[in-house]
């Protein structure tokens, strides 16, 4: 039984894969595989007949895409690199370099310059003291906060967790800083009209 099956299977296979055995009867079998083009049909194959290629539907799309890509590349090469927006603060305006504007400064006496140097040193010492005092005060405040959190943890865990959570309503927080004079309660500020002449650059 199995032998018969295998025989049938082999025969089927051979029928499909051996067109060369059907050489003399080719005009009956028009559909042949292109790899085994027999001698008689050589003159009649498409490239030798010089027919235009059969265009599939995808071809025009592919050509268009090619053309677009080439155009893009051309444009990129032709484009001038965009200039950076100038930072106006870093450019000294030409007006300031004018020689007629120089101030006639009197020369400083020796005592004056010495006094200035000593004052600068005094100032740096003063500022250093101020800074150290600030840093110390902040350290104390942080220590107090750490203590408070430890005590709270000893008390109740859920209150501790609630204390650690962020307050979403706090930010954005604004506060008017100190001015030189206190605000006047019954002051009407004059109308401040202005023309905005800031230059806006676009790349």
């Amino acid at each position: 039984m199995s032998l018969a099956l295998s025989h049938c299977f082999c025969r089927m296979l051979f029928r499909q894969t051996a067109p060369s055995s059907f050489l003399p009867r080719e005009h009956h079998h028009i559909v042949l595989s292109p790899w085994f083009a027999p001698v008689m049909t050589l003159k009649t194959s498409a490239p030798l007949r010089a027919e235009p290629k059969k265009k599939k539907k995808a071809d025009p799309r592919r050509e268009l895409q090619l053309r677009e890509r080439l155009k893009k590349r051309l444009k990129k090469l032709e484009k001038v690199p965009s200039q950076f927006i100038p930072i106006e603060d870093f450019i000294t305006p030409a007006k300031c370099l004018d020689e007629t504007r120089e101030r006639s400064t009197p020369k400083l006496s020796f005592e004056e310059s010495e006094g200035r140097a000593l004052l600068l040193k005094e100032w740096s010492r003063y500022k250093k003291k101020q800074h150290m005092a600030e840093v110390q005060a902040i350290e104390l405040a942080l220590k107090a906060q750490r203590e408070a959190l430890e005590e709270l943890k000893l008390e109740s865990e859920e209150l501790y967790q609630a204390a650690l959570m962020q307050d979403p309503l706090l930010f954005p927080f604004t506060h008017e800083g100190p001015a030189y004079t206190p605000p006047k309660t019954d002051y009407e500020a004059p109308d401040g009209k202005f023309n905005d002449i800031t230059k806006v650059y676009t790349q």
Partner: protein
Amino acid sequence: MAAPCRRMASWSLPRFLSCFGGTAVGSTGFRQFSRTAVCRVTLQTKSMTDKPSSPWTLMAAVCLQRLPVISADLSPIEQQFGHVMHQMELEKSVLSDHELQLLEDAERMSRKQAGDYDSDEEGKDEEIMLAQDLEDSWEQKLKSFQPAHRVRADVDQDVTSVQRCLADSLVLLAEQQVGSQKLWLLPQTQWQEGETLQQTAERALTTLQAAGFKATFLGNTPCGVYKYKLPKAIRTEGSVGTKVFFFKAILSDCGPPATPDTPFLWLKKSELQHYLKPAYLMKVDHFILDF
């Protein structure tokens, strides 16, 4: 052994709570209940919800600060240094347009008065407004504006006013009943179940102060803690002492002017020592920043 102890605890709790101003409505309900059975039930349920029932009573206080409104006066070295810096900057600078105009006008005036002046040389429309005149008109405008006074000695002496000492930051103190005494301290109130300490602090600000202070609380975290143990006479198993947690807030709006009977003060950090107890002051001093 257990029953008489619990009864004692139930007696001492109302007495203890009545000492603390009686603002916490929920906890003063204990006084209304009759002793024995009902009290024990409430205590038991309380001990069931707070599993490790801590012997410390929790309170939250608010450290309300009014930040400075005007800039502080310069110290002598700051003034000197400012002056020297101004001079140095002037020396290193170049003449401005306005100064050039002043110089030109001065030159032209001197040429006019010299005698050999030909008015046809210069354009006739250049002499409308001299730069000096412009300066004078600006000075006149400045003089006509009267700014408010920086320092007002009479308001500075009034310790209850928010407008005093505009160059420093002030802290709010309130007089409250603690135990058997009336003390000056940062406004505090007892913590209640079901709210965070931050909310307790907010409640302290709104209920204990009749005036409408609008404050921004800086976060949920307490900035300091002060704990004190009760004197041994009142101390029991259920209440060893109190822990007061402080929360920082910044005053954003004064509200209506305070009525004279409100017992609160606005004090600078240096003046706190006259009103606060030393141990309390030591803890509070750490987190009140002056700059």
